[in-house]
């Protein structure tokens, strides 16, 4: 079983090698695409195994847990790996037409694959120090991708992104050290048992807050999100789409993992804190977006706002809320990556991301208009798209425990999201192009057009499918949330014995 767990990490690394060696020929992009297809197949196989067996674990190098490094996949990890592969494939296809030869020669495809490996590693590891290592793998690849090409704006955004993420890394590391000092173990399943023995729970809460801050920076929650809107709109779309889809969600995943498995000793305080963070994140994100006038900046602020919903699901810490959080994670990655890809197409057709300088897309490319409306309405939570169910679950969960304030916040933020999406719609699609141009999709060369449109259409299709047939997905999220709330199976699978 161990190869199933290792494959999603090993495959992208193996793909990165030829992609790097052949970086100045056209072959690298096809190698990258092929690697993503294989990754999708491997992740599907992993998902099948996890669905069958509940939790799958493997000890690397046959060192018995909790001493060696454990790779472990429960349903949440497995679905995150699958969604990583889907996003990776979509972006790799989009990159065929989006990344210029200069950036290819600098090694875009190799870095992209290493990023995917880091993300998959973070989802699959069962060891908290190993999680730190995967974070670093992911970070260094993202640093490279962000500044690749060295445009002025990229370097400017890159410095802010890099420095603030490094601060969070140092905090995470110190938190790991203190946690180890208290419990004497790094294995997350073992930590689940070991933290119960800790007498000084106050100290444990301090460490928990350190983790909230460290993961909070990565997840871009209030008030730690400033690096995100400063940098995500600067690199090429094929970079920012994968960032937007995956990177912050690794932070959310880490929060969900640690605050369901390890830090559950004082949920009144830690999850209460998370609840306040969630509400403020939703509101500041959406208000920030309302003030922007640049396609990708609006979307960046909406990432922040949407992160609030996921943290909300974790913070409420009821079965239904966690179902909502898991469902939201999956829905959001697809929708957000797709919106960034659409913004790239719009830029390609109209020549700018600045909403004041573009327009006329509805008249000249109605297909693109529809492909924008699907993820945009889904993001805002319109039925029958995926976002509606995600928001519905979370609002229902808040109402069930009579948290009316946060339920109202979630609904109002949804309305404000519609406002932002309408703004993009009115500016980019509805009003005539200020330059008088009528940018049609037919102006793009056929091969490029296929590469750019296919991933957008596929992701939009996925959004519609989740929206129209939510039941299997909600059922899946229910099972995943059940595993999170009762980690007995997880612990037993990792340690090989029932606690």
């Amino acid at each position, binding site marked *: 079983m161990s190869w199933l767990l290792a494959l999603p990490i090993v495959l992208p690394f193996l793909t990165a090698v030829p992609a790097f060696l052949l970086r100045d020929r056209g072959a690298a992009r096809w190698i990258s695409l092929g690697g993503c297809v294989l990754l999708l197949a491997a992740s599907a196989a992993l998902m099948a195994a996890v669905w069958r067996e509940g939790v799958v674990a493997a000890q690397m190098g046959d060192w018995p847990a909790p001493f060696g490094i454990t790779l472990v996949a429960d349903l949440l990890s497995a679905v995150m790996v699958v969604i990583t592969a889907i996003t990776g494939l979509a972006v790799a296809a989009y990159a065929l037409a989006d990344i210029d030869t200069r950036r290819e020669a600098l090694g875009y495809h190799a870095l992209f694959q290493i990023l995917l490996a880091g993300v998959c590693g973070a989802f699959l590891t069962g060891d908290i120090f190993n999680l730190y290592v995967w974070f670093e793998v992911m970070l260094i690849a993202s*640093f490279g991708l962000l500044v690749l090409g060295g445009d002025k704006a990229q370097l400017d955004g890159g410095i802010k992104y890099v420095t603030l993420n490094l601060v969070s890394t140092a905090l995470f590391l110190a938190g790991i050290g203190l946690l180890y*000092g208290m419990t004497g173990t790094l294995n997350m399943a073992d930590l689940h048992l070991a933290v119960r023995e800790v007498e000084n729970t106050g100290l444990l809460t301090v460490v928990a807050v350190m983790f909230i801050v460290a993961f909070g920076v990565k997840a871009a929650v209030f008030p730690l999100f400033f690096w995100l809107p400063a940098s995500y709109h600067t690199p090429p779309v094929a970079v920012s789409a994968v960032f937007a889809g995956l990177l912050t969600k690794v932070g959310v995943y880490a929060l969900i993992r640690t605050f369901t498995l390890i830090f559950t000793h004082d949920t009144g305080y830690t999850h209460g804190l998370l609840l306040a963070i969630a509400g403020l994140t939703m509101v500041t994100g959406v208000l920030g977006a309302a003030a*922007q006038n640049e396609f990708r900046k609006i979307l960046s602020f909406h990432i922040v706002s949407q992160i609030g919903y996921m943290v909300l699901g974790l913070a409420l810490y009821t079965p239904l809320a966690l179902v909502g959080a898991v469902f939201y994670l999956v829905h959001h990655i697809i929708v957000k990556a797709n919106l960034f890809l659409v913004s790239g197409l719009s830029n390609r057709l109209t020549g700018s991301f600045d909403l004041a300088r573009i327009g006329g897309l509805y008249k000249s490319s109605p297909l693109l208009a529809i492909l924008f409306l699907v993820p945009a309405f889904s993001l805002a939570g319109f039925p029958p798209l995926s976002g509606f169910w995600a928001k519905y679950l979370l609002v229902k969960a808040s109402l069930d425990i009579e948290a009316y304030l946060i339920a109202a916040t979630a609904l109002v933020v949804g309305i404000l999201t519609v406002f932002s999406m309408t703004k993009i719609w009115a500016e980019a699609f509805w009003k005539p192009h200020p330059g008088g141009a009528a940018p049609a999709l037919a102006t793009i060369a056929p091969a490029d057009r296929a590469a750019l449109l296919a991933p957008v259409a596929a992701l939009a299709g996925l959004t519609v499918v989740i929206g129209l047939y939510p039941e299997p997905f909600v059922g899946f999220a229910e099972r995943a949330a059940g595993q999170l709330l009762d980690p007995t199976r997880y612990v037993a699978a990792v340690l090989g014995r029932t606690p």
Partner: protein
Amino acid sequence: METVLALLVGVLVAAAVYLMLARNVLRFLFGLVLLGNAANLTIFIAGRLTPELPPLVPEGLAAPAGQVANALPQALVLTAIVIGFGLLAFTLVLVYRGYQTLGTLDSDAMRVAEPADTTDGTP
């Protein structure tokens, strides 16, 4: 000894925060180095200090005899130092390149990605 090292960590973090509050990105970077070292020392102390007890396994035995020092935190610190060094090297080059391209190290003056006024649509 733990107390002294704990105090040292405190001093390092204080100096790091002071440096990181500066607008100059280079000073921020120096602060980051200190913060990284503080985190490494934290891990080191968290593994308990047991001097003069090397974790060696005597010949013929499968496990070390008696009390020995904990080798794991040192392995962790070593990993963290290597990773931190790599990241620092990258960041230094990035800041230098940023200085060349943007012509400034003042983070307040770095407004290319976020122009001061975007509401009227002119970047």
